[in-house]
């Protein structure tokens, strides 16, 4: 256990506005399964990207075996036998299993198919997988088997360090067991496995050691035999709540939105109510079905069953247009791809959702457009020399304000914010919080999906936690705690 295959010393990586990794030092031993845990945005993904050469750190050193690097290129990482299995598969669906396993390797000018297939058979045999033929097209395999092909690919390249990012996400319980068997076999062969997972129960059954990260910082490394779920959660959430949140003077009022037994889009059995003057926080880990829920409520995706009531009236939402008519607005998670039209002007964006209402017959009333967009420029303090400016030239915070203006201009009074402050600088964040508070004070209702724990606890009146597409818990203001949220979000309770 003593020989160190990989050590990381003082790695720092800054992005504009955030420090993704802050002086992280960590060691990995030969033949261990080393779990990495932390909340969304704790820096796990950036760390593995540094190790695999996808991201160049600002400072620090990476020592692989005996060689030191200030940064790795993806090619160097490959040469050092560092392999990564990402959440999204890196397989070519149109090629066969054998071709995928040997992908990127060259042996002479021509492709030797029989040699490739033999190699695939050998690797799969070694892993104890006999049910997959090397000739099968990968696109025809279920995702659980694709996962195995990913592992086989790494094994065939003689991986010494194998990084697995949320490998169990697409797998069923039985399949996870099968994967664990293979992981243990690799471990016994001396491969170091860096295992990233949100599911703490898995970590206790597979890992030897576990490292906790928080806010881009290294927190602690524990032997799995000497720790427990409670301790890990305490380490994960030990963050100080340094940001302040605007105080609002309002009490939740009448019911604005009620959903009953909502199913569809991977979610099931979702029921809750949202009141005027209330911010209801929706928590959950990545992939828990939060954005999917937002899209159902906005009519952007199809509902399988269940009912939605707006102001005590049952509504049918087939298209986002229907939702807007009912007063439901969505500020989507990806503002550049979903929220606004980057190549168009600010005023153009502001009125696009309410264009019919500012038109006389077919014709857009430019005067009204100016009045309306200028009023939102003032209310939301959109910082720009002119409203004719293209949205792509604005900062993230101002872009977000444009998206909010667009939604408010459509007369929405039930607002769904999906990650309201993602990628926005601190000052603009405060302004967005202030705006949200003003909205609820004016009798609007807000559903806030967020991965930011501080924001969740600081802004919400009530919190619903999702786990695997279902509500796993609800917290009232006096019950708020990071531990509670994380327990529900990890499916522990």
């Amino acid at each position, binding site marked *: 256990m003593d020989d160190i295959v990989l050590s990381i010393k003082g790695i720092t990586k800054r992005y504009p506005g955030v420090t993704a990794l802050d002086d992280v030092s960590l060691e990995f031993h030969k033949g261990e399964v080393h779990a990495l845990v932390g909340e969304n945005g704790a820096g796990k993904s950036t760390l593995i990207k540094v190790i695999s050469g996808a991201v160049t750190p600002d400072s620090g050193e990476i020592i692989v075996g005996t060689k030191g690097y200030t940064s790795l290129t993806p090619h160097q990482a490959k040469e050092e036998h560092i392999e990564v299995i990402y959440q999204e598969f890196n397989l070519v669906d149109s090629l066969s299993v054998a071709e995928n396993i040997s992908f990127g390797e060259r042996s002479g000018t021509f492709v030797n198919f029989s040699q490739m297939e033999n190699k695939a058979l050998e690797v799969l045999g070694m892993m104890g997988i006999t049910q997959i033929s090397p000739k099968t097209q990968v696109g025809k395999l279920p995702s659980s088997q694709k996962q195995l092909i990913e592992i086989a690919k790494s094994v065939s390249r003689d991986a010494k360090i194998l990084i697995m990012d949320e490998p169990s996400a697409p797998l069923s319980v039985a399949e996870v067991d099968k994967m664990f068997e293979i992981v243990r076999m690799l471990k016994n062969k001396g491969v170091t496995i860096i295992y990233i997972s949100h599911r703490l129960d898995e970590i206790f059954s597979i890992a030897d050691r576990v490292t906790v990260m928080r806010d881009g910082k290294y927190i602690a490394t524990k032997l799995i035999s000497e720790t427990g779920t409670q301790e890990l959660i305490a380490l994960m959430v030990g963050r100080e709540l340094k940001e302040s949140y605007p105080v609002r003077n309002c009490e939740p009022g009448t019911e604005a939105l009620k959903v009953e037994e909502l199913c569809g889009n991977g979610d099931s059995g979702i029921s809750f109510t949202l009141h005027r003057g209330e911010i209801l926080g929706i928590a959950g880990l990545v992939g828990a079905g939060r954005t999917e829920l937002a899209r159902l409520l*906005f009519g*952007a995706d199809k509902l399988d069953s269940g009912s939605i009531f707006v102001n005590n009236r049952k509504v049918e939402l087939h*298209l*986002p*247009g229907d*939702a*807007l008519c009912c007063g439901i607005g*969505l500020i*989507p998670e990806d503002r550049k*791809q*979903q*929220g*606004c*039209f*980057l*190549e*168009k002007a600010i005023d*153009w964006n502001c009125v*696009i*959702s309410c*264009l*019919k209402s500012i*038109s006389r017959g*077919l*014709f*857009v009333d430019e005067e009204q457009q100016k009045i309306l967009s200028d009023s939102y420029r003032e209310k939301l303090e959109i910082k720009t020399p002119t409203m004719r400016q293209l949205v792509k*030239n604005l900062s993230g915070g101002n872009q977000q304000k444009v998206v909010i203006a*667009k939604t408010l201009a*459509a007369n929405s009074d039930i607002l769904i914010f999906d990650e309201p402050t993602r990628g926005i600088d601190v000052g603009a964040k405060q302004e967005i919080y202030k705006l949200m508070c003003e909205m609820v004070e004016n009798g609007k209702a807000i559903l806030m999906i967020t991965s930011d724990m501080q924001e969740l606890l600081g802004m919400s009146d009530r919190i619903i936690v999702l786990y695997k597409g279902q509500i796993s818990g609800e917290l009232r203001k006096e019950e708020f705690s990071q531990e509670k949220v994380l327990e529900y979000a990890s499916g522990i309770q």
Partner: protein
Amino acid sequence: MKTIGLLEIFKKYAIFFVMVGLIILFSLLTPYFLTMQNLTNVFVQNSYVIIAAVGLSFIMISGGMDLSIGYQMSLVGIVTSTLMKNVGLPVAVCLIIGMALGILLGLFNGLMAIILKVHPLIVTLGTMTIFQGISYIISNSKSILNLPKSFKFIGQGYLFGFLPVSVILMILIVAIATIILDKTYVGRFIYALGSNEEAAHLAGIDVKKLKLFVFALCGFFVSIATIILFARTGSGASSTGPGTEFTCMTAAVLGGISFKGGEGKMWGVVVGVLILGILSNGMQLINMSTYVQYVVKGFVLLAAVGFDTYQRESAVTAK
């Protein structure tokens, strides 16, 4: 500051200055170019192309593509001619049927693109062949000669002795198209759809309905282009029309309609068609061979597209 302003204007209207440059060039090269007679000719010959290109531009701005325009013209033209000449229906009735058929063919394209969830480029590659087949089945590969005089008036006639009917129709169509695009909410929605379909969907726009509308509108404009073309030639054949789609596409790209959608103006398309028209006309007048003309036109397109991309990139790096 002032020089920057001039440069901006030049960049924005570059295509217009290219056209002016060509007019000056050909005026110097040949005395036959800058005459009332010849310029009227250029307009008459190209009015149907402009109308079809306007239709195509709607689709391109919405982020789609239509390769079937040429054979839509062939089919609409043959049906209209057959009804007029072989069935003997009144001209007015045939025109209405022709326009309705144009709208129908456009709707068919749009419907296929929505149902099959395939890019319209591929869809219209298929429907193009279908339209071609039907057109030849109806015409039996034979030309229909001597179309009625009242019909030919649309393509050959003059109002007040000097205003070509086809040019008046063209100006009318361009005006309507410009108003739809620039002034109505439907036009805004079309730009929205082309610049970001997902955001358009989430902004509450009924994307499917809008796509159908755009294709139907294009079909309508194409049917008008067909009527003008067939009326000008005075006879109908299944081979009349095909090829127009590429001229229109070239003109649209020249005129600044982005292939990715979401951008472009109608006046640009008109100038685009006119540039191609002036090039053909001018080169013919200075006795350049047809094949050399193709080579020149090809290079003009590449230069225009290259200039556009270069300008965008320099704008990006300047930031």
